[in-house]
């Protein structure tokens, strides 16, 4: 029996065979537009890798030439690039480490629901919703040497000539502080959701048995919360190692080369020195790092996601 015969007698046919055929193509049809939009972005990405293998300076177009790993070799033998690696690592470790500690601490303080903790957990969302570049400009206003309120506060504490982002000694401290202001709430919000989702019984049992608080913290809470801590930390690490907005808006990498993290260094190479080849090589190295990190991240994230879906 063909479908057309059925359609003849029934005004509303259930298109069985047709449906089965459609089910094969349908998913591709549905996801194709999204994919096409991304292919357009994937091509330049491959191109960047190709640029990184060329001597390619916009100021000297005639010298453009394929040089294999020349850019990478010259980067690795350049003290400036090792400085960039060091600065990026410092920034990443400081921000992620401090934010995890502070974020966990705050999440634990907000764990029990009261009016104050509910209000505070809403208030914490606010800094997270401020664009990092704008946050940097806000802190720049507050740390201005002439009228900055924070400069005034630290002068009350006895630091009269505290120069914040304009002195090489304190520039890193300043941008890390801005990063913490913006992103600690991110960690707090995720960990708070994790904490509130934990089963209550182990904690109640521990309280009944009079188990010391440090034991509860290290042997019960931390292990149970660990998947959340890991996901939040890796998430932040992936962002932090690519930090651009906060540092660019604050000092553009200065003073001197104090804050020349990966992407700022690449930006400087591309837009100040028009050296596309070298800039691309820096970015490919950064991409290799983030790719490795994101693989670890995705594994953890998937496990959490499965669990969240399972609970629903």
């Amino acid at each position, binding site marked *: 029996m063909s479908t057309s015969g059925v359609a003849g007698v029934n005004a509303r*046919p*259930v298109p069985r065979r047709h449906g089965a055929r*459609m*089910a094969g193509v*349908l*998913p*591709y049809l*549905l*996801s194709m*537009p999204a*994919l096409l*939009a991304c292919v357009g*972005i994937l091509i*330049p*990405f491959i191109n*960047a890798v190709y640029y990184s293998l060329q001597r390619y300076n916009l100021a000297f177009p005639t010298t453009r030439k394929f040089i294999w790993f020349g850019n990478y070799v010259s980067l690795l033998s350049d003290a400036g690039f090792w400085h960039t690696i060091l600065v990026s690592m410092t920034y990443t470790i400081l921000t992620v480490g401090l934010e995890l500690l502070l974020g966990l*601490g705050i999440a634990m*303080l907000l764990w029990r629901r009261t009016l104050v903790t509910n209000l*505070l957990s*809403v208030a914490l*969302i*606010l*800094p997270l919703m*401020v*664009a990092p*570049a*704008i946050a940097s*400009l*806000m*802190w720049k*206003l*507050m740390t201005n040497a002439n*009228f900055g309120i924070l400069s*005034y506060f630290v002068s009350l504490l006895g630091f009269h000539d505290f120069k914040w982002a304009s002195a090489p000694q304190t520039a890193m401290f300043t941008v890390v502080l801005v990063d913490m*202001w913006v992103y*600690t709430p991110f960690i707090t*919000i*995720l960990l708070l*959701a994790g904490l509130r989702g934990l089963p209550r019984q182990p904690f109640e049992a521990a309280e009944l048995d009079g188990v010391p608080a440090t034991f509860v913290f290290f042997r019960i809470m931390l292990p149970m919360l660990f998947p*959340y801590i890991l*996901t*939040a930390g890796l998430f932040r690490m*992936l962002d932090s190692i*690519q930090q*651009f*907005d906060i540092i*660019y808006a604050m000092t553009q990498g200065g003073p001197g080369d104090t804050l020349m993290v990966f*992407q700022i260094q*690449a*930006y400087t190479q*591309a837009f100040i020195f028009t050296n596309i080849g070298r*800039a691309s090589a820096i*970015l490919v190295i950064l*991409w290799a790092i983030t*790719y490795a990190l*994101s693989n670890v991240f995705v594994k953890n*994230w998937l496990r*959490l*996601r499965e669990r969240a879906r399972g609970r*629903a």
Partner: protein
Amino acid sequence: MNGKSVLRAVALTLIGLFFLFPLFWVVLMSFMTNADILRNPPSPFFSPTFHNYVALVSGQLVTTVGTQKIDYMLNLFNSTVLSAFSVILSLILGVPAAYAFARYKFRLGEDMAFTLLSFRFAPPLLVLLPLLLYFQSIGLYDTYIGLIWVYQLITLPLVLWIVRGYFEDVSEDIELAYRLDGHSWLSTFFRISIPLARPGIAAAALLSFIFAWNNFIFALILGSSSVQPVTVGALAFVTASGIEYGQIAAALVFSIVPTLVLAMFTQRYLVEGLSLGAIKG
């Protein structure tokens, strides 16, 4: 009150201060005249003035050396256009794809989903640098369309992974029952699947709007002042207005109010959105 709860209260106060004071102070500064701002010691008591905001809205900045025209309102308009259309495009592209990934186990499906996800973690400049050279040669540089397309890097993964989770939660049986009633696949999709996933779609839309609004680097590289959003505009504004600190503060307040207001609506979905669906709020 025992010692422990005093300590707790102190800690909560300090946390509140650290995270809220900067916002409070910048809002205060935006209502100050330059004389008030430069007063030493600084004081939260002053007679508020709206003239910083008036100057911004009219585009006529009063500086010590005369008036200067700065079209900061254009930056606000650009932010709105870029974010709104990026979200709309992401929903059109992302919702059907999210449905496909949630419902069908198909070859390359997971690969595609993860390719889209991986964009979220690649260094933006790596893509922006070659794109800049392309855009200049095909005329997409400094256009809304070019930027909205690139903004998909931020908004599309968000829409895809949040909405996918909601589709996975919708029982297939409801869809099947409706189809057996003789309705086409298309009408099932629009009349059953989408309405059931609506909270997820709304959450994804609001969150991706906020993320698009807060983006800085894309428009810094791929546009000039005519299409640049407030994030980039504010930086230019700081340089241009020099020592008019009240106006700078007002400009910053203008740029953050829309996202702060939206954030109040997204609260419920924030956890899920920020973790790309990995943690339920």
